[in-house]
């Protein structure tokens, strides 16, 4: 059953950046867009399971640190080789300055 889980404070992520969030034996990436919106995806790249936390956020794109594969982190869509498989995304809400993601 899915549930809202507190991932971090809204200010813990810089604008146009991401952080790693681990929960229940899984790892996630939580993003803050340049327009101050928040998003969440699986933490591991679908190409070779490298964590995206060291990657580069550009607008709404996350570029993987290993082979520069790109995803749209709003939809999880794989945008550029070598990634071919989309990322899972998760609903996010911000309440009282805390970021929650819906997982499960």
């Amino acid at each position, binding site marked *: 059953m899915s549930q809202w889980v507190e991932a971090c404070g809204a200010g813990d992520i810089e604008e146009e950046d991401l952080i790693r969030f681990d929960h229940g034996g899984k790892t996630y990436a939580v993003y803050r867009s340049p327009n101050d919106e928040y998003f969440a995806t699986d933490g591991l790249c679908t190409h*070779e399971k490298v964590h995206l936390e060291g990657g*580069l956020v550009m607008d709404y794109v996350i570029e993987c640190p290993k082979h*520069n594969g790109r995803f749209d982190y709003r939809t999880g869509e794989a945008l550029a*080789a070598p990634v071919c498989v989309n990322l899972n995304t998760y609903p996010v809400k911000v309440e009282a300055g805390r970021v929650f993601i819906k997982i499960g």
Partner: protein
Amino acid sequence: MSQHNRDYSLTGRDAQRAVETGLASAEWYHTDVPRKAMKEMMKRKDGPAIRDTVIWLGSMIVLAGIGVALWPSWWSAPFFLAYGVLYGSATDSRWHECGHGTAFKTRWMNDVVYQIASFMIMRNPVTWRWSHTRHHTDTIIVGLDPEIVFMRPPELARILLNFFGVIDAFNAMSAMLRNAFGIISAEERTFVPDTEQPKVIFIARVWFAIYAAVIALAISTGSILPLMLVGLPRLYGAWHHVMTGLLQHGGLAENVIDHRLNSRTVYMNPLSRFIYWNMNYHVEHHMFPMIPYHALPELHALIKDDLPAPNTSILDGYREMWPAVLRQLRYEDYFVRRELPPTAKPYKAEYHQLAPSMLAAA
């Protein structure tokens, strides 16, 4: 423990063994760099690559124009030689940087330069994108890395011929013809996904058409001039990219998962760095492929205390590499073990428990 009779084929015994021993897609060593500094260096820019591309292509047009005007006099030779380096060597690094997608901020600019450079360096842009991906996953892992130049024992004749692009161009033309006829080799299938293979074939057919047109023009005009401009510069201008490229990993360790052991950073003169687009910072590039070429000197300054001392020049690099390569003719397991400065984190034994070449050096 020695590792005789290495099998560099991507479908062979050592490929299987690398998977079994955990060397495939392993966790590699990275120097700690603060996230803030990384973000700053990772930032994409168009300015440096636009400037360099204008200089690169502009120079090619001018040199080709003068070469053609002076043709067939020998006075055209220096202009063609310079044009050849920009065609047959500078494209190696443009192919590389644009393949990573880091040279320009604007995506289509990366893609256009990638296609142009791939054509000139004779690397199918689809096949080689995937082979290079594998090179970064499994750098110098025997049986997994498709881009190992110095296989042991080194085939020196092959390497020397490649200073004039002979083997590379022959292989490239063979692959182009094979792909143009719709055939993808077993090796290519190990790293090019099924969904991408039709693109390999399409590109090969386009290139085939271009080369056929250039050859037809040469025959109809009774002159090799068209081929001096398209195709042959990959031979007579290859020497610089081979000279710099051999230094990347030559004579260093195989089957390790720390780029400080299998890659080499070499300080180079500004002209070579322009042609090579800063790939002389090769340890840094492998450790952090997200950093654009123009930020590599900055990255080098930040992490150099954690890396072996760079070679001070191309000559200094060859003085280290060449004797090691010659020794590998007789002792396959020999390699240069690069010393770390006292400020560096030591090579981790647990990273290399399964690495035969490290054991050989111990």
